[in-house]
């Protein structure tokens, strides 16, 4: 790491963290609204409609409700673990936003090991889910936590392999540099050279963020609500926000790695980045409202028997081509 620790850089990081927190909070509201509208339109319903014009204040009302609710802990739950879990789920996610280059100027912390930082801190999420399921002393929670651990650990590997393929190709772990290696036109993006890596990354990202059709840790028709069965109020709200924040991170990284980041055919800037991220987020929602849920053994089979070998092959092929 070449970032020298100075007052300026610390201030920069702190400011960035505050900015990220605001960004995540606002995005949480926006995405909840978008998710419900997408679900509504796909199902030929209006979706949220009553609170504010076209229901745009629905998410705000929900957030206020969650904040206003009493914090309830089951009698036999472990208080420390029970309350640590939502905090641990939410705050590390903020760190993940730091190295993401929204635009050349709008980067929280331009560190040359940005990819590594994201992958490392993303591992916190699984710990939070495990603590939530274990600490709430609920059998459904426990089953959900067990699923979450097995799933997250498994899907991290192909995710890493896909990322490595890009890192090999670009020869750097800095996100800014990776974007710099791509052009503005769609055919200059990494997705053209690495379509398989993109597919593996995106599927693994669905698995990592517990999104349908891989939402097994919470699978409400099997485990009622899985790891967060016992959470209500802001306890639940934190998990909820963390899920959306994780989605944004996954889509952002995907944009940086494969879709040219902030670069576009004209007028490069953060708007291109955001447009691409929201496009990916919308497709995640689209998947959720289209597909049934896979079974747990199928989920793991998909990973170990398809994504992992394909990821390895892709990485070897990339290495081979790069060597040439």
């Amino acid at each position, binding site marked *: 790491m070449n970032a020298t620790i100075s007052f300026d850089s610390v201030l920069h990081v702190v400011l960035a963290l505050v900015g990220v927190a605001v960004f995540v909070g606002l995005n949480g509201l926006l995405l909840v609204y978008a998710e419900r509208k*997408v679900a*509504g*339109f*796909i*199902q*030929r*319903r*209006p979706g949220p*409609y009553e609170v504010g014009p076209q229901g745009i204040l629905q998410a705000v009302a929900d957030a206020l409700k969650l904040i206003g609710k009493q914090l309830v802990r089951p009698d036999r739950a472990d208080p420390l673990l029970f309350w640590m879990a939502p905090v641990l789920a939410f705050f590390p996610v903020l760190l993940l936003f730091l190295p993401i280059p929204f635009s050349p100027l709008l980067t929280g912390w331009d560190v040359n090991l940005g990819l590594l930082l994201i992958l490392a801190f993303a591992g916190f999420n699984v710990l939070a889910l495990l603590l939530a399921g274990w600490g709430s002393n609920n059998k459904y929670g426990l089953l959900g936590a067990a699923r979450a651990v097995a799933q997250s650990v498994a899907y991290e590997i192909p995710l890493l392999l896909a990322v490595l393929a890009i890192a090999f190709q670009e020869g750097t772990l800095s996100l800014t540099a990776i974007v710099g290696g791509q052009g503005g036109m769609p055919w200059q993006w990494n997705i053209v050279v690495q379509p398989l890596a993109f597919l593996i990354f995106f599927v693994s990202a669905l698995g990592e963020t517990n999104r349908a059709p891989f939402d097994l840790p919470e699978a409400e028709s099997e485990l009622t609500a899985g790891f967060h069965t016992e959470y209500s109020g802001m306890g639940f709200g934190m998990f909820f926000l963390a899920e959306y924040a994780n989605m944004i991170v996954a889509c952002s990284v995907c944009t940086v790695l494969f879709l040219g980041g902030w670069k576009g055919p004209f007028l490069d800037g953060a708007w291109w980045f955001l447009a691409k991220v929201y496009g990916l987020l919308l497709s995640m929602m*689209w*998947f959720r*409202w*289209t*597909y049934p849920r896979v079974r747990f053994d199928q989920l793991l089979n998909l990973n170990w028997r398809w994504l992992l070998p394909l990821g390895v092959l892709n990485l070897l092929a990339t290495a081979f081509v790069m060597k040439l």
Partner: protein
Amino acid sequence: MASIFRTLADLWSLVVGLGITGKQFCKPGVTVHYPRAEVTPEAAASFRGPIELIGLDKDPAKPKCIACMLCVSACPSNCIAVTRAPTPKPTPEELKAMAEAEARGEKPKKPAPPKAPGTWTYDFSLCSLCGSCVEVCPVDSIGFSRDIYMVGTKREDFVFDQLARLARKAAARKAVPKAEAKAAPEAAPPPAPASSESGAPGTATPASEA
């Protein structure tokens, strides 16, 4: 190798699914936005709402009911309670005639109780809308209302004084011109929503027409 191709073909089904939901996404919704819109009166016409009394053709405020109690005994859930109208006090002439008859040793002719209900209460919270009372009524004095949007906030809201309800309805009928009365068959029973008058039936797009 063949299995890989089959897998690819299977994966295509996922794309097809996305195509279908994507297409539906672009189509307009089918929800009827109650209370801004309501189902058409035609769609409500066959609905069996809480029962109501039917008035005489000559005097719509008075029920056809003859207080025969058939509905009370036919009801499986005991939700109807009817009492006969009290026997009127004999007039002085009648009293005189009765006294004379008694004096003659005949059976005095007492005034008969009127063939009309004194009270007619109906507890909708018990009713299963089976229609037994409607079918059994010998004078067709009971019918189903078309109240689709009836709401109440407490249990007592669903105990109707049917005679009062009929009277109110007849009064409301008189008040509004005939054509409008047809559009809003339920005018002003207490728990009936105001929307059935203020809403604009006919503008709605019910699911049946989608």
